[in-house]
């Protein structure tokens, strides 16, 4: 019998709120964070919508401003959620009471879902390319006078992991997962596995991403998955997703660790799994077999049946094909169980999505509501068999299932409970 893995801290930074309370309130009020992109001149472009973090000011987001010069925007967003979750968990005041915190630190792990696509950081080389006038020799010679000496460190994909360790002294088992939109769920799952096998007692889990960059917007639009109009999951007018910025963080603990310090418990991580559908980088299987497989396996692992699930937080990214497949698979597996999603409000936060959506799913379970999909007006014919609603649905049970799908035909699924 493995020990229960519980959630003892929550934090997030999203386009609809600068913390968990604000984000949850916005969800309940059916507010969306999607609007015209402000961080660059998007006026003349067809694909000008994004879900940006509002009034973004890095100096207000981190307690240690000295490290800002060594971080990217992505990192700041990620570390802000980490700070929130750790504060919320009250881990540090507890550590203060220990005579020797070394063991505590060594048995605290860090698991991160990190962004997989970044362009902006390379812009630092554009002035050098101009200066080099096509000569690589000149490029090399002028490098030091044009590019910041710490450039490489600012671009490290594992900065959030590294600084979570450095700032808090946590030294346990860790992973930095760069696996597109399943990274957040995978970070939760890898933390759960490490906790279950007893090599750590608690873990900080964080997912973060910042997808609002011109090149990213352009590539996703060219793939045909970005909407010029808005994100309307399962709606007959859905025509794509909206890219977003955001982060979410959790503190996970073994039940005995939480109990020992009398921590408030916000929920339980039951089980989950990741599988591929081996269909390439961008395509997904139209028969839904990959998605079916990952959900079925997750229920098996959690030793639950579909009847035990109160509602499903669907991937619900608003693209025509993905939503139709997901609706079909969920209808097959879950019959009349309520389904919702959060991307209509948050935008698609990619590596952050799994963690933010886990937080919102736990709050839904606690308050016994299934939040509505605010942009849903006319449920699409090819999504008609699932139970979705524009406003909140009622909820009886205490478990929910969360779905995440990513590029490279990877699917992850997680069951949580309260």
């Amino acid at each position, binding site marked *: 019998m493995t020990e229960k893995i519980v959630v003892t801290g929550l934090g997030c930074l999203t386009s609809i709120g600068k913390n968990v309370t604000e984000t949850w309130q916005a969800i309940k009020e059916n507010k969306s964070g999607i609007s015209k992109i402000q961080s660059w001149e998007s006026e003349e472009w067809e694909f000008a919508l994004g879900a940006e973090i509002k009034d973004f000011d890095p100096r207000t987001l981190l307690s240690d401003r000295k490290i800002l010069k060594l971080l990217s925007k992505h990192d700041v967003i990620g570390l802000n959620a980490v700070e929130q979750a750790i504060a919320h968990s009250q881990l540090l005041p507890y550590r203060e009471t220990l005579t020797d915190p070394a063991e505590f630190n060594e048995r605290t792990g860090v698991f991160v879902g990190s962004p997989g696509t970044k362009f902006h950081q390379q812009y630092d080389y554009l002035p050098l390319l101009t200066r080099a006038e096509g000569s690589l020799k000149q490029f090399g010679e002028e490098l030091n006078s044009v590019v910041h000496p710490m450039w490489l460190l600012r671009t490290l994909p594992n900065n959030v992991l590294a600084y979570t360790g450095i700032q808090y002294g946590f030294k346990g088992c860790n992973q930095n997962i760069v696996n597109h939109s399943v990274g957040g769920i995978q970070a939760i799952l890898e933390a759960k596995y490490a906790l279950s096998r007893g090599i750590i007692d608690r873990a900080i889990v964080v997912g973060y991403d910042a997808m609002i960059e011109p090149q990213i917007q*352009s590539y996703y639009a060219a793939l045909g998955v970005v909407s010029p109009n808005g994100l309307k999951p399962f709606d007959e007018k859905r025509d794509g997703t909206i890219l977003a910025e955001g982060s979410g963080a959790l503190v996970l603990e073994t039940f005995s660790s939480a109990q020992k310090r009398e921590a408030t418990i916000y929920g339980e991580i039951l089980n989950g799994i990741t599988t591929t559908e081996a269909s390439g980088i961008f395509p997904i299987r139209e028969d839904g077999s990959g998605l079916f497989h990952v959900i079925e396996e997750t229920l098996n692992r959690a030793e639950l049946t579909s009847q035990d699930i109160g509602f499903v937080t669907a991937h619900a990214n608003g693209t025509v094909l993905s939503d139709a497949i997901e609706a079909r698979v969920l209808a097959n597996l879950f019959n009349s169980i309520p389904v919702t999603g959060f991307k209509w409000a948050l935008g698609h936060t990619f590596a952050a999505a799994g963690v933010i959506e886990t937080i919102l799913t736990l709050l839904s379970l606690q308050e016994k509501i299934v939040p509505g999909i605010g942009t849903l007006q006319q449920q699409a014919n090819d999504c008609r068999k699932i139970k979705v609603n524009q406003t909140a649905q009622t909820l009886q049970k205490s478990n929910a299932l969360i779905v995440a799908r990513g590029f490279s035909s990877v699917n992850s699924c997680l069951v949580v409970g309260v």
Partner: protein
Amino acid sequence: MKNKLTRVAITGIGMITPLGLDTHSTWEALLQKRSGVSRIRSFDASGFTTQIAAEVKNFQPQHFIKNKKILKSTTLPIQFALAAAEEALQDANIRPTSSTDKRWGVVIGSSMMSAEFSYWQDFHRQFAKEGQLDIKTFYKNSFNYSSPSEFSKMQSNTAVGLLAELHQIFGYAMSVHTACASGGQALGLGLQAIRRQDADYVLAGGFDSMINPTGVSGFCLLGAMSTSNDHPESASRPFDRLRNGFVLGEGAAILVLESWEKAKARGARIYAELAGEGNTLSAYRITDSHPSGDGAIQAIQTALRDANLHLENIDYINAHGTSTQMNDLCESNAIKSVFAERAKKIPISSTKSQLGHLISAAGAVEGAISALAIHHSKIPMTLNQENPDPACDLDFVAEGPRNVSLTAVLSNSFGFGGTNNCLAFKNPLADEVTL
């Protein structure tokens, strides 16, 4: 409890390295004391402070990758990974079938480089001639410019997706990046996936190339690389007093990890058992570990515990050994701290002295070398350790490769950002009782 864990066998190895385009030629070149380091040939590096690297030579992607669509939508480092994986599967003599495909997984330590340098040159020419993005020109042409095949090159998990597609793998899939620890972390995750029965077979490893103008620039700016441009072959000199930085390498190593029962049942050749992993954070600085070895110490101790090994079982350590002063000092101190008086008796070598530093691939390549060392009963050397650093007073196998039968081996990988990984390998013939 430990005995009940599923054991993990290494049954296939594939490598593309600066010393060879397969496992056999890489291993032979290591034993022949050859260096893979030379002046950079793939671009004009004459203006850079560092002009040397360990490049993969004569790699012809079309020779390894027959699918033209995949060839077109991959970068060189991803092609290294695909080629190494194919060799590993052939070597293991097993592939996913319709009855086992859900029991196969893939775990890759992926390169941090996204778009290639040629992409940025082109982007600069079209949209940023003056050094800043001209957003209006970009909008006008963005659709013609943004091809999916180009985009697929830049995804951090492209290698995972392509390996799954090419080999029809339907189980666990993971892509990780913890800088220089990535490859080791990937092997560790593969081990865990089999132990917790997410998979019976895992393709696990890492790939990287930062030998391009921006990759080399990043390390030049930090002053982390050797500038011995006139003596490339002796530039990588781990644990040597005259070292002056690491030498960048490139390549890939992919291993077939297999549950012990499955491997035994089909009579597979087992190179070694992947017996344990330790994985910690230094929580000290981004680029350095604590000089005392703190962080690395706990990684090594955790790996030993995880593998159920005692100090006296370890008879070779494949060091991280980057040939930077801070790493070499920290690593020596970590080994001394863990092994106490036994530290001086354990042969330790850094194959980075011959291969350079393969960054995200390093841990996987060195894991493969550790398994080969057990399989062939041979310890590779540390090349160029001619003037032992008094602060690193251990046995670094400087005189040349040794013939020794090995019971258990450790491989260290420590990354920028403070992640420390240690893997433990056991001789498949070693009797559990004697350990």
